């Protein structure tokens, strides 16, 4: 679910009309999208109101997923995207913008 938010899931409206109200157009993650290997790190921290500081473990992890993907893209290609989902077109546009700026600054530097 977190991966869906980070990569695919977005409700598209034209006025008040929902344009992608079926799973033909609304993309959800599939098993084929999953990495072959997932490594898990537990961070132990007393936080919740449950016994011994326990709290629900599912939904909390959703928060970080889209940000993780955005961080990975930044680290890989150097563009910071602040809007989920990170669709291929959105990443392409960010890269184009970065290239444009890089070229611009070179000209300013007299390069």
């Amino acid at each position, binding site marked *: 679910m977190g991966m869906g938010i980070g990569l*695919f899931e977005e409700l*598209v409206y034209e006025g008040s009309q929902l*344009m*992608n109200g079926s*799973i*033909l*157009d609304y*993309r959800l993650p599939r098993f084929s999208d999953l990495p072959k290997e997932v490594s898990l790190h537990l961070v132990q921290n007393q936080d919740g109101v449950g016994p011994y500081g326990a709290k629900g473990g599912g939904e909390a992890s959703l928060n970080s997923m889209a940000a993780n993907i955005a961080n990975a893209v930044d680290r890989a290609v150097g563009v910071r995207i602040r809007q989920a989902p990170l*669709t*291929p*077109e959105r990443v*392409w*546009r960010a890269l184009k913008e970065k290239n444009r700026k890089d070229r611009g600054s070179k000209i300013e530097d007299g390069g």
Partner: protein
Amino acid sequence: MMPLRKFTIHQPKSIAEAAQMLAQFGDKGRLYAGGTELLLAMKHDLLRYEHLVDVKTIPDLNKIEVKDGALVIGGTATHRAIERSALVQQNLPVLVTMAANVANIRVRASGTLGGNLCFAEPHSDPATLLTALGAKVTVQGKSATRSAAVDKLITGAYETSLANDELLTSVAIPLPAKNQRAAYLKFQLKERPTLGLALVLDLDGDTIKNASAVVGSVSAVPTQSDKANALLIGARSQVEKQLGAAAEALAQAADPIDDLEGSAEYKRHLISVFLRRVFTKALS
């Protein structure tokens, strides 16, 4: 969502009987094969028919054979049957790869090649590849049979040149010569491709004698450009330098549209990326 409206299914025993039924029902009837597109549209109440003519039970309409120098695929052959056919694997491996990647396994198991072409959904993998391969369809009506190139069958988004009483009985794809190379690649995130690009090249050593590049899914119908095809002819090293110009010509001819799959600008970019990729793949 509304429940599906009532309709009657008819099961003709022959192509002639199916054509007769289609003629009789006119606008109130439609041919029904795999139903993967048609029933979806009917469920959404975008299309309404009182009669469906189910051609799946017509004997031999799903036959795959080699005849007169062509691979001939019956109208009701499913994508899955094409993918698994030894005859197709031997003669046209590019078609196997394409068929194996249409939509999803449920669609491939019931969706048919004829249905895919005749529904003329703009995001069609088969229509794009078959146009590049120079395939011809055979169409039978109440009183006559005719043959047409795929790009003469598909005339627009969800539009074909089929008359009310006509049905597609088979698709004939010329068997590739030894020096022919073909590849099909697509970019797809959702259920349907954002872009499909097919390339067929006739080689003479390191020289490309003839080229056919077809881009699909980015606009209403699969598109070729004479200018792009001309730029793809010549010595391989020369053509490699012209790929950018060829992609530009192809994008101009296709005139991509903005839709849920992406903006026109992005699709133009994809055409240039995928023309390079499909060129490399065809020659590998």
